[in-house]
């Protein structure tokens, strides 16, 4: 069991367990926190794959801001233990479960078989990617994908304005009178 393998298996176990608890937890706050946990573990996984900047961003942006947003909203709603966490309808539930299971099986089957073709060259290429790929990311992001970057800026602006308008529209402390 090499160190890397151990790290990978440990982190993926954490990710899977917290992912499961996101779905299974009755109390939404716990599921939110477990989701934060998943994100941090994923960030660690990213770090193992050399994407340090993305890992940092993941933690700062995703775990640090988006999840905090969720937690704030949850706390504002003061949602406690949910008695009926899952939607009604046994049959539809069963169908959904079966469907997702089958889908997962299919995808995994495809991945394990198909990717084998991909697997071969990866060992060779691994070296090509620099140990810390943040610099490469920055270069390409601001050269080839600068338009995308600006578009994202605009998108975020639009979202900010939209969210404020939406939140203020109906009732509440800052509602338009």
């Amino acid at each position, binding site marked *: 069991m090499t160190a890397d393998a151990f790290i990978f298996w440990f982190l993926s176990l954490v990710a899977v367990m917290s992912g499961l608890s996101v779905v299974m937890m009755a109390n939404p706050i716990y599921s939110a926190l477990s989701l934060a946990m998943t994100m941090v573990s994923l960030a660690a996984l990213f770090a193992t794959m050399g994407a340090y900047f993305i890992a940092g961003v993941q933690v700062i942006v995703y775990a640090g801001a988006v999840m905090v947003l969720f937690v704030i909203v949850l706390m504002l709603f003061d949602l406690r233990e949910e008695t009926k966490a899952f939607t009604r309808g046994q049959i539809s539930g069963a169908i*959904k479960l079966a469907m*997702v299971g089958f*889908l997962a099986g299919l995808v995994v089957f495809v991945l394990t078989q198909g990717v084998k073709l991909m697997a071969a060259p990866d060992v060779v290429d691994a070296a090509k990617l620099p140990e810390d790929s943040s610099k490469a990311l920055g270069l390409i992001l601001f050269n080839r994908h600068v338009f995308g970057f600006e578009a994202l800026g605009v998108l975020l602006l639009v979202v900010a304005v939209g969210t404020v308008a939406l939140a203020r529209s109906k009732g509440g402390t800052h509602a338009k009178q």
Partner: protein
Amino acid sequence: MNHSLLMATLLLSPFVGFLINGFRYRKNGPNLSGWLATTAIAISFICSVLLVADLVGMPVENRRIAVSFFDWLTVDKLKIAAGFVVDPISAIMILVITGVGTLIHLFSIGYMHHDKGVAKYFAYLNLFVFNMLILVLGDSLLTMFVGWEGVGLCSYLLIGFWFTDKDKAAAGMKAFITNRIGDAAFLLGMFLLFMTFGTLNFHDLNQLAPTLPEASWLGAATLGTLLLFIGATGKSAQIPLYVWLPDAMAGPTPVSALIHAATMVTAGIYMIVRLNAMFMAAPNTMMVIAVIGAATALMAASIGMTQWDIKKVLAYSTVSQLGYMFLAAGVGAFGVAMFHLMTHAFFKALMFLGSGSVIHAMHEEQDIRKMGGLKKYMPITHITFFFGWLAIIGMPPFAGFFSKDEILWKAMSSPLGHPLLWVAGVLGAVMTAFYMTRLMALTFWGKSRVPKEVHPHESPALMTIPLIVLGILSIVGGWLGINHAISSILPGHPANVLEHWLGPVLLEPSLEGVHQSMTMEWALMGVSVGLAAISAFVAYHFYVRSPETPQKISEALGPVYRLVSKKYLVDELYAGTIINPLVAFSRNLWQHIDVQVIDKTTYLLADLMKGGGSVVRGLQTGNMQQYAMYIGLGLVAILSFVIMR
């Protein structure tokens, strides 16, 4: 004056009169619209007189004024121009139409004075005259057909003038539909003629008509002319399609006078005279025409004797006189038919207007049983009516005698004629004399049966002047066509003006082979006049001296009398055989096919759509998780498909 200008004013002045009255029919008062319409027709009368004067001046062989305004229709071989022709035949017609028309317009100013829609009435009258002129002046069958239809329309409008009254509206509808049936046959005839002869122009048709008469019934000329004749029976109210004329009396009396006595009904005869060469080429059709003419004369006269409504009696008399004209045309005496047409126009218009003034005086009372002894109250109407009566029963000096006797003589003597036809003619004449005298007796002579509250008075000057003019015409009219026999005994041997006028234009059966003995003519004339005089006296005796005798006779005859008085139940016959089955057939056609078959299928389609819609609607629950599940299922399906392949 150049002819096209004259022709244009002749045609357009009634049309302009129609437009003015038509568009201002609410605003124009009775006097304004009346005098406007009358002047319009008077202008046409003047133009036609000028045209005829020019015509007379022309050399005999090509007496023909043809004017063409614009090319109306040019389709492949068919080239129709809006061409109008005045030749000896149409000259008589336009003079009669505009002349009598003007008098009738004058009369109706007085007669229709109290009516609400007077302007509308005069607009229709003007439109009618305009269409009649087109019919008469048209140089091709198609232009004539335009007038033919226009006239039909106007007769419908005028008969149903007081359309608020259901029966009058129904009468208008009946007239229009029966005419339409006739027109259909007319159209078929036109198609057939065009197909075989390639043209519809009268002049060309007469040239192209086969010289040797066709023997078979299915020859082009015979069949074509037969169909045209059926059209004519519709318009001129002969045996199969005459039912609309008696009901047409529902219209105002001047209308009956103008349309149902003088002009429209004569259109059929004019058409036959126009295409005389074509008809001569079809002896079978001529025989049919003669027989139907005689039969109609007899039948109508018999019904006439049993009618109590003054206008109904006159209507049946018109039908029978038209029968005489067809009889004349049938035996090839086209000239005499035109002559009788002219004289009939005068005295029948006179009698209709006379009855109009009587009705006007009796405050819309039309039943002669409630009249009698009006001589004292309405002297002018009585005298003019008296002259008309003498004319119609055929007393020698009057117009009727000359034209009717000529017809009877031609029926006997013409190569196409037949003694039987003459017998029918004489019988008709006897009956005509009887019912006309009966009418005169019951309305003017004898005791007055006028109900107390009614005070008959003489009509105003406006109405009596036309009566007087027509009275003079019905006396003088006859002298235009004195035949040889009579002219030989008269001082100065006056020539047969009409004979010379129409002769060159008409193709009459050649008389070489037939021996025309004068004595025979005189004998027949004596017989017919004598019989007519006797029946007149009998009728006088019945209805003036002893009014109860006709009562006894009618009971004695019993069923026969009732049958005749019910117009031989012809209306009921038609209703039973044609109308009711047709209506029944169309009703169940509607009931079963339309409702059951067509509607049901469309509803089926609609239901299918709705059903399909509701099935799909089930998917739209709004539950987002269900949508997510469908996405998942779709994904699974695609993936498994991709993998399995």
